[in-house]
């Protein structure tokens, strides 16, 4: 009897009490993932503590599919830092390097200009029409750590949703049929 046969058998032998136990353990997995994510949000102070690099504009430093860990502290933004920012009218945040900073003396507000390491010109073409500088509220966080390749998992899942459903289905089946 193969792996598939065992699986089918174990589904047949399900009882109501067992189903409930499995549902609870599945719920535990989902909620603990959620707890970890929210805890990371609190610790890093950034609304998305981890981002996946989607474009090659920071190559060769960051390639598509790399993961960046963000941190958002009260520290002022300085030239050279890699920041993740949202531009009005664009949904996807951008990861680029700060090349110019002008910080006001009286209010402490900053005007920031960014550029991708691999791009020829600065980012004014990417900003909203007529926008010359980024302000503090555009910036979601600064990159502090780096992990290569791991982000490919999410890129593949967003671009090929069928793989996502197969994976979720397989995992669900495993959880339901596991006896211990």
């Amino acid at each position, binding site marked *: 009897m193969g792996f598939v046969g065992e699986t089918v058998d174990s589904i047949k032998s399900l009882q109501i009490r067992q189903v409930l136990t499995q549902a609870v353990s599945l719920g535990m997995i989902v909620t603990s993932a959620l707890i970890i994510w929210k805890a990371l949000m609190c610790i890093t102070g950034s609304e998305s503590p981890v981002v996946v690099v989607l474009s090659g504009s920071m190559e*060769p430093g*960051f390639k598509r599919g790399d993961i960046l860990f963000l941190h958002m502290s009260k520290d002022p933004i300085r030239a050279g*830092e890699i920041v993740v920012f949202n531009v009005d009218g664009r949904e996807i945040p951008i990861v680029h390097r700060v090349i*110019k*900073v002008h910080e*006001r*003396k009286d209010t402490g507000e900053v005007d920031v200009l960014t550029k991708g390491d691999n791009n020829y010109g600065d980012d004014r073409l990417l900003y909203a029409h007529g926008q010359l500088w980024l302000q503090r509220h555009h910036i979601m966080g600064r990159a502090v750590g780096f992990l*290569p390749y791991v982000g490919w998992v999410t890129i593949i899942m967003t671009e090929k949703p069928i793989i996502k459903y197969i994976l979720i289905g397989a995992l669900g089946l495993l959880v339901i049929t596991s006896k211990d």
Partner: protein
Amino acid sequence: MHSFGYRANALLTFALTILALMCAMASFSDNLNHPTPTAQVQVLNINWFQKQPNGNDEVSMTLNISADLQSLFTWNTKQVFVFLAAEYGTPKNSLNQISLWDGIIPAKDNAKFWIHTSNKYRFIDQGSNLRGKEFNLTLHWHVMPKTGKMFADKIVMSGYRLPEEYR
């Protein structure tokens, strides 16, 4: 208990744990490196210096940058991003940082360099404060690891001054 799925799961978990541990150790080993980089920058010429029609001062200069950043490289270093920024204060702004030149150093062999260049990005003030302005030239570097934490540091070189008159 010892089904195929169970064994595959145990193997995958173990492999991922070891991989994560090795990444963490590689990143931690960067802390053991104490780099001693050096840099010199000369402003060879002010090419032109003028007030734009919108009232902002702009200056173009020729720079000579030499640096030895070889000691920044460790076995976990993918590249070093290096840039030279002009830094100064004005009555309106407590800090202005303007990147004048930047470069990517892919390997240790390229980390001792010498370059003669005019400013790559435009040196424009917010306002008209650049005549006779004293400024610092700061060489910043950001070490990008193969995995783990990124490092950054700088060398500040002070005592540069722009001319009193537009030219």
